[in-house]
């Protein structure tokens, strides 16, 4: 069965305050890096899965992202998906 590599990027919705991002931004200033107008911290879920085809894989990942990886009240997600190249002997 084809294998797919996926990265789900989870971020806080724009309307939700990100205190960790704010703390990191102020640390960046102390490091001498000026001019940062936005710094928000999210997370990445990196996974591989088997599926009949890409659209099936996408369906499974949408379910996972909506129901498990994120809480839609406070978080958004986006998906990067690519087939894992089959290795030839």
């Amino acid at each position: 069965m084809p294998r797919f590599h996926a990265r789900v990027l989870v971020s806080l919705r724009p309307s939700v305050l990100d205190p960790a991002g704010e703390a990191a931004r102020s640390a960046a200033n102390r490091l001498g890096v000026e001019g940062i107008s936005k710094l928000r911290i999210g997370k990445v879920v990196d996974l591989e899965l088997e599926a009949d085809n890409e659209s099936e894989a996408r369906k499974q990942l949408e379910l996972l992202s909506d129901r498990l990886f994120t809480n839609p009240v406070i978080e958004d997600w986006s998906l990067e998906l690519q087939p894992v190249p089959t290795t030839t002997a």
Partner: protein
Amino acid sequence: MSIGVVVFPGSNCDRDVRWAAQGCLNIPTRFLWHETRDLNGLDAVVLPGGFSYGDYLRCGAIARFAPVLESLVEFVARGGRVLGICNGFQVLTELGLLPGALTRNRSLHFICEDALLTVESNRTPWLMSHQRKDALTLPIAHGEGRYQCSDETLCQLQDDDAIALRYVNNPNGSVADIAGITNKTGNVLGLMPHPERACDPVIGGVDGRGLLQSLLG
């Protein structure tokens, strides 16, 4: 008449709830391991504080899939009373039994202190023994207690008279100073403060007694 206290791997206030309910208030109490589906004979269920399943991913995100919570959803639909305290409140929002979500405190600090609260609604059995605007002092102990919801949800909570408790001095950045909410029906209450830590006069204050007593009506 008895209540159940759910025990997830990582719960750490389950014994405190039992002490408060059974030891201080003579309410027969039994523990419910997270894998059970049997809620027979219970009048109410408490989801206690702690770090269910390590709170991996998000607070309450994994606990939501526990077998006991499938039975809990049916229990709530039948009108059973459910009280979610701290991590229990987080689980109830992840489960969709209460709206909104709880996220990182504005200060990023874990806050452990007494919080002054006001009773915003005495519509439900949980706070019927109080008057509106009554003051309560209950301990809080959380790193992720900032209640968040959309403007529409906030309006709905207000329209339903579902905001049960507010902080007087908002410690964590919660929307509208919200410390606890109920569902529309009123049989589910979630709150960040710990009523079970305010039931034994030896440890200072008994303002939590009314809430726990209302588990049995």
